């Protein structure tokens, strides 16, 4: 083509020699590279001038080995990128120094991307040209970007404390930027300000295993420690769906309870009124006439209505199958006391015997009272077959509450742990609900 004189057909990478130590320095970013670090003597070199001026020398007792070596290529989102630069940044948080690593990725057509890593947490980052909208602050400031709301996480001053490789901008050890981070997991927006220039970048939390696979790194990625600002919650959306499930199950349970109460026959099979006088010499126990329990295996209710007043009674019962001799033994205490302060207990009582098969039955009754009172008791005994009960449905309803409460508590715990690392750590539960949807 016409332009072949001005632009050679294939652009070749250049290399230079460090004016400080003579070591060969490889340039992978072509003419984009402004500064490059001599891997041998850690001099920061100006790669744009033929004289290769030394811009800075920094000394470190310990050499840092980037977890992804410079020159490594990997495919991210179907585009091959090469790691060409590395910097370690630090923040001084009240005397505690926290460090994280940033990798500069390059493709001669697709441009520059970044990877950041802090304690095993990786983010894939690109610079934004659109401006997120800062929302009026009511409490925690937030920004909106592409219909998503990001909440302010922290503001910090990041200082570069180690660099390797090459950069398309001027860089020195000791450079610092003001950074504000806004999160909406798995995304994070960062606003970096250097000498009045504001740059927004967009980060997506990326599991280390994906990075390892993309760059075909040996071994496995370092384990994560703690919870990162934009790390997606493993409970994301789960409290909501657990509560929705709970709602449907509860509706179903209520429906079943209604069907049960509507289909129970609730049939009175026996009723009689008796008088009991304590202290009488005769044996207090007696049996009722035989009655028929029909239908499905179901419950039987024994109900008592006494005229007790400031007194108690105890009843031994046995429901006995006339044919098989199978019996259901139980005892009930009925007591009722009242004075000017109020009352305690009830003169009425009822007990339910579950799962009684159909058949001919009679009830053995043995009342007891304190014999010193000489007060007789009149009571009405009612036996009903297949009465509707809500007890089991209440238990089931309570059990159904356990999963959603458990998941909600765990989700809130995760968010609390996330926000403990933020600028809002002092107000303990500032995380609130993680659901932004």
């Amino acid at each position: 083509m016409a332009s072949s004189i001005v632009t050679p057909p294939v652009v070749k990478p250049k290399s230079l020699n460090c004016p400080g130590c003579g070591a060969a320095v490889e340039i992978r970013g072509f003419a984009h590279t402004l500064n490059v670090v001599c891997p041998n003597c850690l001099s920061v070199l100006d790669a744009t001038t033929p004289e290769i001026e030394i811009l800075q020398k920094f000394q470190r007792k310990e050499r840092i080995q980037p977890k992804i070596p410079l020159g490594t290529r990997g495919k991210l989102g179907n585009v091959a990128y090469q790691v060409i630069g590395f910097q370690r940044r630090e923040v001084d948080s009240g005397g505690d120094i926290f460090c994280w690593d940033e990798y500069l990725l390059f493709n001669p057509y697709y441009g520059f991307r970044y990877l950041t890593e802090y304690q095993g947490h990786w983010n894939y980052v690109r610079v934004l040209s659109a401006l997120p909208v800062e929302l009026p602050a009511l409490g925690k400031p937030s920004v909106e970007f592409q219909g998503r709301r990001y909440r302010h996480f922290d503001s910090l001053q990041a200082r570069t404390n180690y660099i390797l490789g090459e950069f398309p901008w001027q860089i020195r050890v000791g450079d610092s930027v003001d950074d504000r981070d806004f999160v909406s997991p798995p995304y994070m927006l960062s606003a970096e300000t250097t000498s009045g220039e504001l740059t927004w970048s967009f980060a997506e939390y990326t599991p280390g295993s994906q990075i390892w696979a993309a760059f075909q790194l040996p071994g496995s990625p370092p384990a994560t420690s703690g919870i990162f600002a934009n790390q997606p919650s493993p409970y994301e959306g789960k409290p909501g769906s657990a509560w929705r499930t709970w709602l449907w199950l509860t509706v179903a349970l209520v429906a079943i309870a209604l069907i049960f109460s509507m289909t129970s026959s609730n049939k009175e099979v026996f009723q009689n009124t008796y008088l009991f006088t304590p202290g009488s010499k005769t044996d207090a126990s007696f049996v009722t006439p035989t009655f028929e329990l029909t239908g499905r295996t179901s419950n039987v209710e024994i109900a008592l209505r006494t005229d007790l007043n400031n007194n108690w009674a105890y009843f031994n019962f046995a429901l006995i199958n006339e044919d098989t001799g199978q019996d259901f033994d139980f005892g009930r205490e009925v007591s009722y006391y009242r004075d000017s302060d109020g009352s305690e207990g009830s003169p009425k009582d009822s007990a339910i015997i579950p799962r009684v098969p159909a058949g001919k039955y009679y009830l053995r009754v043995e009342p007891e009272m304190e014999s010193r009172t000489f007060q007789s008791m009149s009571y009405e005994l009612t036996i009903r077959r297949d009465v509707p009960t809500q007890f089991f449905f209440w238990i089931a309803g309570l059990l159904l509450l356990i999963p959603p409460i458990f998941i909600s508590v765990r989700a809130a715990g995760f968010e609390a742990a996330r926000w403990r690392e933020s600028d809002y750590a002092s107000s303990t539960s500032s995380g609130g609900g993680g659901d932004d949807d």
Partner: protein
Amino acid sequence: MSAPAANCPNCGAPVTFRWSSAVQTTCEFCHSILVRTDVNLEKVGEVSDLPPDASPIQIGTEGIYQNKAFVVIGRIIYEYEQGYWNEWHLVYNDSTNGWLSDAQLEYDLSWQIAPPEPVPASAYKGMKCQWNNKSFEVSSITNAHYKGVQGELPFQYWDKSDVLFADLRTTDGDFATIDYTEHPPLLFLGRPVEFDDLHFKNLRLFEGWS
């Protein structure tokens, strides 16, 4: 495509135009800057060496944006405080022209428009403007100067050195640039584009990347 041919008044090499509205071009052999007059070409200057450049785009690169094919016919290299950027001059297959900027491989397409309202005579950071029902905010004021030109351009740019740009951004990525070199100032509207959106052909090749 129209290709009016002429000869370079300096070295006699053939000079062709891919765009009939081009006002200025460069001779690809002797690097003379040539301005088209009614009758012939006039040498008005000479291009100094272009800075080393790693843009994947070159004169003759073709692409398609939203079903409209374009070809790169010219270029302005601007230098500013933080380095260089390229404004590639495009002609579309409907004979309209536009610009493709490449700043550290961040690509933007832009078009000059007739301002719907007068453009403010001066700009400051944070200033808000409204064009085509969109609000723009001045995000930076850039002092730049010409580092080089190449190929066909819609204006005579050979005699200008310093330019003042106001860059305006929106919340959805669209942007505007006011070029304060002219009176009245020129207004360009644009939007960022992904590399893959442009379906390029005839790009430069980079060793080790194919």
